[in-house]
């Protein structure tokens, strides 16, 4: 999968997200290379350590646990993604009828 963070070096702390292979649900890279459901359980990497984080995240792809790994720049409070798209990934669809 393409990663936007790879194309442009991170300038803010990053966390890693992917979709879980089995059910496609959004997951976040936590401690010990484990993939977690909640962004609050993720481990942020400093911008200069983003490459190290990416290598760890890719292991999840090689182990066939997750699909489509990429880095997400965050504000450490939360952490909260800087971009709207990933904030939606955290929240789920913003539309009421199907939110479950």
């Amino acid at each position: 999968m393409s990663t936007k963070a790879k194309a442009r070096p991170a300038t803010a702390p990053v966390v890693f997200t992917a979709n879980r292979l089995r059910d496609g649900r959004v997951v976040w890279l936590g401690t010990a290379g484990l993939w977690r459901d909640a962004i609050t359980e993720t481990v942020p990497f400093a911008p200069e350590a983003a490459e190290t984080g990416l290598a760890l995240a890719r292991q999840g792809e090689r182990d066939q646990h997750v699909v489509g790994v990429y880095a997400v720049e965050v504000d450490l409070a939360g952490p909260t993604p800087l971009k709207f798209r990933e904030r939606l990934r955290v929240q789920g669809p913003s539309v009421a009828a199907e939110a479950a």
Partner: protein
Amino acid sequence: MNALTYPPHARTYRYDEIDREFLQERIAEFRGQIERRLAGELTEDEFKPLRLMNGLYLQLHAYMLRVAIPYGLLNSAQLRQLGRIARRWDRGFGHFTTRQNIQFNWTKLEDVPAMLEALAEVDMHAIQTSGNCIRNTTTDEYAGATPDEVVDPRVYAEILRQWSTLHPEFTWLPRKFKIAITGSPNDRVAAQVHDVGVLAKRNERGEVGFEIHAGGGLGRTPIIARKLRDWVPEAEFLAYMEAVLRVYNALGQRENIYKARIKILVRDLGDEFTQMVEREYERMPRDRYRLDPEIVAAIGAHFAPPPFASLEDQALHADPEFRQWASASVRAHRQPGYASVTISLKPIGGIPGDASADQMEAVADLAERHSFGEIRVTHVQNLVLPHVRQEDLYALWGGLRAAGLATPNIGLISDIIACPGMDYCALATARSIPIAQRISERFASLDRQHDIGECFINISGCINACGHHHVAHIGILGVDKRGEEVYQVTLGGSATNDAAIGELIGPAFSYDTIVDAVETLITTYIAHRVPGERFIDTYRRVGVTPFKDALYAPA
């Protein structure tokens, strides 16, 4: 095997044993591939093309399964089964798309084989709903019912389906390929913005032939199609279509995804494209492609008129609320005493095109009771019961109301097309659905909607334009501006006989101000309209300036 009983008179194409065996083989094959993927034996790079061939996408929050609804036709057993799938394997909803298909947004990879089995029980599948192949042909939702129909397009849509399904030469086209066909002089299928748009018609001798347009499309480069031929005789239909596809397949620009659609080729080559198709057509072994009248008749038998009763036209029930609904939703039928009913999937504040499992089942029941068990999906993301007795309309309305499906807004400003946008789609640059929800809430008053009259608002969440924003009276395109959503507005588009691409009116609006912008456009129209004018008429008469001035005037 078909475990469910079909309504006897629903005119959907019935699979034969060969079709069913083929489907079972495909499911078994994909089941094996999924098992190997889950066991880690296939990588995502290896698996992705396989899942896409089976209609399975990976979206923002989950996998999405796109199920083909051939030319938008369903029978009640099929719709009921879609409801069951929504309840069992999704979150209780399905989303009807502008391609007359349905998508399940919360699919789990491990559930897919069971979902495909459930679909196969009712002769449905998800094959060819993705990838660079010929996709589901779309057609007129009032086919076989509308008084203005000259030729029944379902027959030829089914012929196109059989011809294009697994066509060995056209499995790897330069890009996806979408065909729309209508058999009425009034275009309800947006024929001129499809890769190929077909108008089936008759000559003075009553013979069937086809007017062929090619190279239309929306997306990054919206283009109105070019007419290639005014008349292709019925027997030569597939030969001519094959010639169009061959020229495209040979010359389409595979190396550049933005230039790979047929519209770019047709635009660049102009008349030369037409000539190349003609030359290809001339040298084709016509006999091999000749459409045998017996085959046409055999397929036509699947779409024979249902056993209509001999009835007289009737006056509508006097209930004013019912009449308001009927004025928007009920349409004339070719058979005296009958009508077609459009069911709005656009409740105020709702998600355009979404139906709950309960609603799908309710519509299936109502279709059985009132419309020979037949349902159509429209490219505007609504449903149609094609053949309803006028004497049953009041009872049908009662049933629809009980299911929350009687919003009387068909063709009005809250009958909005919206793609899934960033709430679901991995390609999106902005959300579409909440914009549609907020616009419909702003214009919730039915009296106001009726006063505004026909007005089409279409919203896309990225330049791919699945929400057909270019051909809306008011088109809204969500784009990303430094990580935030903003919305561009186009005016004056049309998807009917007078097809036109809307004009970009000026700088984009924020998520918070876009609904006010729409309101300003509407008040400007109301201030300028003369009696009898729709939004689009006023826009065409007065031009863009008053709208621009109203939107961008300094406060």
